[in-house]
């Protein structure tokens, strides 16, 4: 399978990365090289094989459902580019 420039632009949009015409063209070639490389997997017989979901045979641990942390909104927003009254500020999304 290979991708064309329109697909690359669509995927970039899904990934929320702005691409211009030149970088989309460059990435199309690069992505096709990688997709060509992974095509080798078609040689492998995977009939009846279960996908690997965990490399370690361990049931996922679950902690007790309780509050263990929190109460410091100023620390939560400390690294944000724009904040106001301990809220994250983003461009207007609702008219």
């Amino acid at each position, binding site marked *: 399978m290979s991708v064309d420039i329109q697909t690359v632009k669509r995927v970039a949009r899904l990934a929320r990365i702005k691409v211009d015409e030149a970088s989309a063209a460059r990435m199309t070639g690069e992505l096709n090289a990688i997709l060509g490389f992974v095509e080798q997997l078609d040689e492998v017989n995977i009939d009846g094989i279960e996908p690997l979901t965990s*490399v370690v045979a361990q049931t996922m641990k679950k902690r007790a459902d309780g509050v263990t942390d929190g109460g410091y909104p100023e620390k939560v927003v400390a690294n944000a580019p724009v904040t106001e009254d301990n809220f994250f500020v983003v461009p207007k999304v609702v008219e």
Partner: protein
Amino acid sequence: MTDLTNLTLADARDGLKAKSFSSAELTEAFLGAIEAANPKINAYVAVTGDQARDMAKASDARLAKGEGGALEGLPLGIKDLFATKGVHTQACSHILDGFKPEYESTVTSNLWADGAVMLGKLNMDEFAMGSSNETSYYGNVVNPWRKTGSDQALVPGGSSGGSAAAVAASLCLGATATDTGGSIRQPAALTGTVGIKPTYGRCSRWGVVAFASSLDQAGPIAKTVRDCAILLKSMASVDPKDTTSVDLPVPDYEAALGKSVKGLRIGIPAEYRVDGMPAEIEALWQQGIAWLKDAGAEIVNISLPHTKYALPAYYIVAPAEASSNLARYDGVRYGLRVPGNDIVDMYENTRAAGFGSEVQRRILIGTYVLSAGYYDAYYLKAQKVRTLIKRDFDLAFEAGVDAILTPATPDAAFAPGEITDPVAMYLNDIFTVTVNMAGLPGLSVPAGLSASGLPLGLQLIGRPFDEETLFQVAEVIEKAAGRFTASRWW
């Protein structure tokens, strides 16, 4: 006094206990060495001198009272991927510009609890995506090693290039590193240092910037096998904050050293003999086999038939997980924000400006293979192939193999700019990536020099949670090969 920075971590530990020198003196020696070398090596992206001096002073006070932890007063470097409270933590990416976490990763917390001293944060490939440290926002790391008679710069490998170079240039006693497809073992091999990626689940991933969560593991890079054993003991823990952290007590890895390897069965997988592999890599491998045979180990030929599919499967699984993990960098909660006409425009501008080209490439591949209609053809198939890769190892271990010996890398260090094709760069991890896919422990130990005078490493792969055997066997190779030190030009 001899140069304290040349000591191994074990020797420095013993020297501090014997009061031959203080942690303050040791720390000052490293800070001086970093100041002199870093403009040329570029291993550190942030040096925390004041913090290091404070920690050293506190360690000296504890040592004076006969107290102190396993790493008391020992100066270490920390890969920029580990969250360190109030200190530069950016995964060497522009998108985390200015990020200083309000919390400390479990691995680094463990180190400080045992008394270690932080010298600073180490350079790396952006988000640990790279095999040459050329994708860092903070510039290339320069390998302390050069070809005999040459002054051409070489890459230190990656992604833990800063960790490996800092250890090789004696800019720290040891360093933390992480390994998703070979990022500890490949740079260790290219710089003549020792590195171990422990079993998945051995070190907590809490507070480690995520790349591919089912593959990422932290581990140490240090000068010797013993130093790695000491560091891993402190880094590893059972952590309720990481659901994949495994409930097994951490053994005393150092105690495994010096044990005879007589009777151990060492597997040699035929599939690691790849086309175009330089003759000197094959010779190094044969030398390693001979050393272990001389030490009484039994050499058995084994087959890991799905080896060649590990790298293509990895380049589906790792980008898929990365595209999900890196979705969090949106210019809202931390790091860089580039304004836009609306919120989506802001996201797109921020991510275009903040991520470098290799990271963008992997996010796009990951988004594509997970997108509607392609999931089964790519991601699901890759996860099934992963089952087969793991089964290969399971069968070898069930048949009585105690550890597997392979080359660590297909070649020695190369020059920056020499490999520009992404797929050719990925091939650097051909021998290491299988281990991540199966979640096993893998160790790289220096075993010789190439014809051009560059270090080469051998890799040992172990049973899950049997890091002790890897240390035990690696020390035999280390003793036979001797240690390799770069001649100082910096």
